[in-house]
């Protein structure tokens, strides 16, 4: 059972019901659940979208797109049915926040899905979880069945004339399916290969119908925004970055865990106060601020507020909120190799720059880390990564290139230290592959 953590600086909004048995529907209702969905049913779609816009809630999957704006793009009239898709394919290394939401508060996901459905005029929502989360899929399925039994889902939700159905869907192992169009392909029973955009999902999505797709944390936040009121929610965060975020502290941190902190919370403070500093009293070497695809930050770069805009200004991304902390005993070349190995494994192979780029980066870094690198390799790695950027259907190519560029640019000296047959001063793990 994943351990829950707590810190006085936390503002518990999304995590408010964690550890209180809220997976039970009666307990969820006792703790104020399903009142937001009822309110939204009374108020209507325009009011919901206005509230979401005013809350300045932005997508928690990584891109940070304003949720209210996304919903407003769905056409009011549509010949084809509209769909709500909840993305619970959580697979970005460093990220485990949705894991806790499904475990402790599954009904908040259902309630948020209902509200999204009401906002865009959809009758069917899908909650897609990665296949590895089988025990969480079972929790979600039970929660959905309970919501049907209460009449909160079905032909006449909350006794109204409005219909809304929910299906819980299992994946079967694929990081790429976390990309919105690939997820739709997977739901249509195909390989999870991304679609070219435009058209965007809001116009042509699942089964060709207008579709809203949101991260599970975003959807779980929605009922809280309605309950608190948009203005109160927005006030918790920083400008244009409403509310809180579930930050996952992992790696060489003294107190790892998922902490709910206001958007804009200082990263240095997050590491040294909330996370208790570096494990074993060691020194900080680097921070990956928002999941493995976000460019690395140096210790002198972490005095920043953790919101989409400020982390962007610092040259990285807030991403999925997975803060991975590296101490001074970490080999950056090895870390870069492990990161690129992941993207090489997960590239679906559809776009050549990503398929070939991730493969060659892995080969180069493997050779480099094994002590067979030449000085030219450092520039080649950078050149390769630069030429993957922006040249693929979906952001997986960028997700592989961005961190690689960060490592090479910020730790060039450490790459050079691996040259001339010098053994890696730190590493022992990554096996030497014959390249």
């Amino acid at each position, binding site marked *: 059972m*994943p*351990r829950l953590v707590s810190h006085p600086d936390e503002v518990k909004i999304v995590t408010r019901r964690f550890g209180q048995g809220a997976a039970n529907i009666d307990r969820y209702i006792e703790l104020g659940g399903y009142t937001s969905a009822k309110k939204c049913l009374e108020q209507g779609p325009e009011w919901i979208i206005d509230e979401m816009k005013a809350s300045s809630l932005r997508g928690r999957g990584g891109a940070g797109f304003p949720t209210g704006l996304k919903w407003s793009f769905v056409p009011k009239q549509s010949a084809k*049915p509209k769909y709500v898709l909840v993305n619970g394919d*959580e*697979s*970005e*290394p*460093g*990220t*485990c926040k*949705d*894991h806790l939401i499904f475990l402790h508060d599954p009904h908040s996901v259902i309630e948020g899905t209902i509200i999204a459905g009401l906002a865009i005029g959809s009758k*069917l929502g899908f909650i897609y979880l*990665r*296949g*590895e*989360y*089988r*025990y969480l899929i079972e929790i979600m399925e039970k929660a959905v069945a309970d919501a049907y039994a209460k009449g909160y889902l079905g032909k006449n939700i909350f006794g109204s004339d409005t219909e809304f*159905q929910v*299906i819980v*869907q*299992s*994946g*079967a*192992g*694929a*990081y790429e399916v976390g990309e919105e169009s690939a997820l739709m392909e*997977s*739901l*249509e*029973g*195909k*390989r*999870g*290969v991304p679609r070219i955009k435009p058209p965007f999902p809001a116009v042509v999505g699942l*089964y060709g119908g207008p579709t809203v797709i949101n991260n599970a944390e975003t959807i779980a936040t929605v009922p809280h925004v309605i309950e608190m009121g948009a203005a109160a929610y927005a006030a918790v965060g920083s400008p244009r970055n409403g509310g809180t975020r579930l930050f*996952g*502290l*992992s*790696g*060489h941190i003294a107190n*790892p*865990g*998922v902490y709910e902190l206001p958007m804009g919370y200082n990263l240095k403070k997050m590491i040294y106060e909330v996370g208790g500093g570096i494990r074993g009293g060691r020194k900080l070497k680097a921070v*990956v601020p928002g999941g*493995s695809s976000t460019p690395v930050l140096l210790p002198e770069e972490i005095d920043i507020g953790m919101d989409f805009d400020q982390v962007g200004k610092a040259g990285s991304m807030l991403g999925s909120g*997975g803060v*991975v*902390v*590296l101490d001074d005993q*970490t080999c950056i070349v090895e*870390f870069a190799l*492990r*990161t690129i190995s*992941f993207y090489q*494994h*997960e590239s*679906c192979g559809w776009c050549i720059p990503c398929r070939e780029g991730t493969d060659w980066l892995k080969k180069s870094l493997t050779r480099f880390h094994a002590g067979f690198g030449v000085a030219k390799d450092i520039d080649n790695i950078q050149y390769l990564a630069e030429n993957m950027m922006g040249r693929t259907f979906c952001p997986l190519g960028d997700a592989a290139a961005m961190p690689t560029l960060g490592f090479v640019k910020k730790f060039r000296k450490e790459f050079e230290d691996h040259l001339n047959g010098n053994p890696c001063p730190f590493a022992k*793990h990554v096996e030497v592959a014959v390249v």
Partner: protein
Amino acid sequence: MTLFSPQLAARFDALVARYPLRRSALVPMLLYAQDEIGYLSDAVIAEVAERIGITELDVRNVATYYSMLRFKPAGKYNIQVCTNISCMLRGGYEVYERFQDELGIGHKGVTADGLFSLEEVECIGACCWAPAIQVNYDFHDELSAASVPGILAGYRDKAAANDASSNAKPEGKAPHA
């Protein structure tokens, strides 16, 4: 002739009835069928193709994309060790190496008795409780290399208890055909 148990067949029928498109059931059904039968044999693929109403080639094309789906039997307990960044930083590779030593098998290997198989896997979404592994669908987190023998012993006991009870009453389910 069907390979599906009545429960699996019923689950399939309930699932397909709900989707706007029948083949939306494909990805989860492949996984559920694998859970019951152990792996995606030619016969399983043929049956899923027929039930969905698509070609076997189409099923294979989709199935080969997903990393959890397999075409060979695994052990009764499939041990999946995450070595991705958050786990690596906290000793994921030491855990993985200890499993290799204890079991005498490597990546995607199966022990001679068919009890265990081992896999190095990508992020399993337990980064804050690293290093973590999954045995079939069960998570074990905050591990170290020293926790490995205890985990294996636990599953050996479980298997022995299962064998004892299935001698008395056949379970009718072979997870590793």
